[in-house]
């Protein structure tokens, strides 16, 4: 019963989110384009599926995964847990005593990104548009790797207290350099994948981790240091996605070179 009530309330709030979007789309369609929508029934059903799907998705996350994930973020950043490895109570925690936090950040960043619905959408589109050159899984895994590296670096930053701009500016410099060397067609997609990663699944868990860390590490403030993990999570995917394209291109070149060499040999003999 309680489940049905929370499902209905989530369903209503999802519908509330979709109403302005639907109003804009159908308003422009009716008054500006003035053409009937092709397959209107199908499109409306599609919208229905999206709304119901999102509602179920959010309900499930809130019922099952978020409470557990948040609890874990709290427990892992708890000084009592971290002190297990220390021999005496007088020892001070160093940045390397937080290794489980970094591993958790990496794992949770990668796994939540794989399940991110908007990334799935972009990957499907990119695969379709590129005629299969960009694999759905290749893109999703490289973005997930980027988020994972970004978030674990971000937690390291909170623990160590190194100023955020060092990382962000270094990251941007890398992005700029890669932009010049990466295959042209990947660049816009790589830029997009930075913004796509941080939505429904990743943000709540990552925010809990950041705030938990900033509260328990001595000398950090939740307001100044708790934010900023999202910025890490949207910067590093650009680097890994361009890297993915560079590696793919390099492999294809080598394959082609090998094939040429073989042909040459065949011709000679």
């Amino acid at each position: 019963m309680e489940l049905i009530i929370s499902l209905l309330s989530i369903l209503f709030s999802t519908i509330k989110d979709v109403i302005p979007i639907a109003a804009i789309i159908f308003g422009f369609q009716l008054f500006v384009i003035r053409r009937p929508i092709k397959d209107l029934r199908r499109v409306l059903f599609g919208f229905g599926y999206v709304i119901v799907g999102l509602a179920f998705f959010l309900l499930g996350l809130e019922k099952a995964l978020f409470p557990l994930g948040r609890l874990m973020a709290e427990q892992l950043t708890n000084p009592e847990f971290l002190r297990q490895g220390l021999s005496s109570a007088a020892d001070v925690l160093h940045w390397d005593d937080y290794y489980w936090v970094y591993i958790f950040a990496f794992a949770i960043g990668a796994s939540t990104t794989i399940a991110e619905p908007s990334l799935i959408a972009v990957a499907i589109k990119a695969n379709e548009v590129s005629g299969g050159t960009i694999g759905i899984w290749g893109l999703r895994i490289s973005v997930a790797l980027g988020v994972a590296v970004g978030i674990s670096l971000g937690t390291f930053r909170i623990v160590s207290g190194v100023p955020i701009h060092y990382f962000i500016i270094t990251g941007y410099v890398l992005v700029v350099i890669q932009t010049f060397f990466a295959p042209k067609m990947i660049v816009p997609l790589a830029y997009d994948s930075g913004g796509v990663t941080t939505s429904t699944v990743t943000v709540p868990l990552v925010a809990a981790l950041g705030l938990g860390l900033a509260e328990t590490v001595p000398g950090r403030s939740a307001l100044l240091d708790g934010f900023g993990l999202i910025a890490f999570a949207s910067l590093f995917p650009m680097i890994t996605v361009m890297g993915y394209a560079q590696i793919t291109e390099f492999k294809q070149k080598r394959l082609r070179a090998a094939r040429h060499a073989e042909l040459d040999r065949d011709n000679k003999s």
Partner: protein
Amino acid sequence: MQKSLYALMQSMLGSLRDLLPIIIVIAFFQLVVLQQPLPDLVGVMTGVVFVVLGLTFFIYGLEMGLFPIGESMAHAFARKGSVSWLIAFAFALGFGTTVAEPALIAVAAEAAQVAANGGMIENNPDARSVYANGLRFTVAFAVGLAIVIGVVRILKGWSIQYMIMGGYMLVVLMTGLAPQWIIGIAYDSGGVTTSTITVPLVTALGVGLASSIEGRNPMIDGFGLIAFASLTPMIFVMAYGMVV
């Protein structure tokens, strides 16, 4: 009937596979690292079933509704040839989907609280709500503008690198000038604006436009709208912190 049931089963299996990494990570940390039992196993399993169902429906609906409507509108605008209506549509789509975004409302309220604690504005509900609403409309305007810039870029065929790099240069520059407390919020506001429904729609719009205009490559010109939408809010929020 049997065939579509089979397809449904297959996409549900796909969704389960998408979710599996999270389950493994959480189970590993709970059982091995923290060495605690899984609380409320039945509740967790129900939740997982809901997530799998939800993801399956979402992807079904994506290919039936969101992608086709985004692309067909892009084609219709291109055929109509009216640039001003296209720009109006782009702005409305960016502004309208952002202004009501729950994540943004939450971040704006939080930012108002921080500003009030820091003595930037008076600490009463009225002043806070004025400040939070101002911030919300600033971000929504920034996203609307971003989609417009992105659409104009597709129409003109400008290359994206220099625009995005220039934007990030501006972000770095403004980070030095803006008040310290707004920076974290500004960086995060870039991430919260692109919701799960907006992303597929905007992507379909960009790809649809690029494929219906001659001389544009959907791969090179069609993507990039989201990149603008996560860049401009950072700039505008820092500017808001400097002005207000």
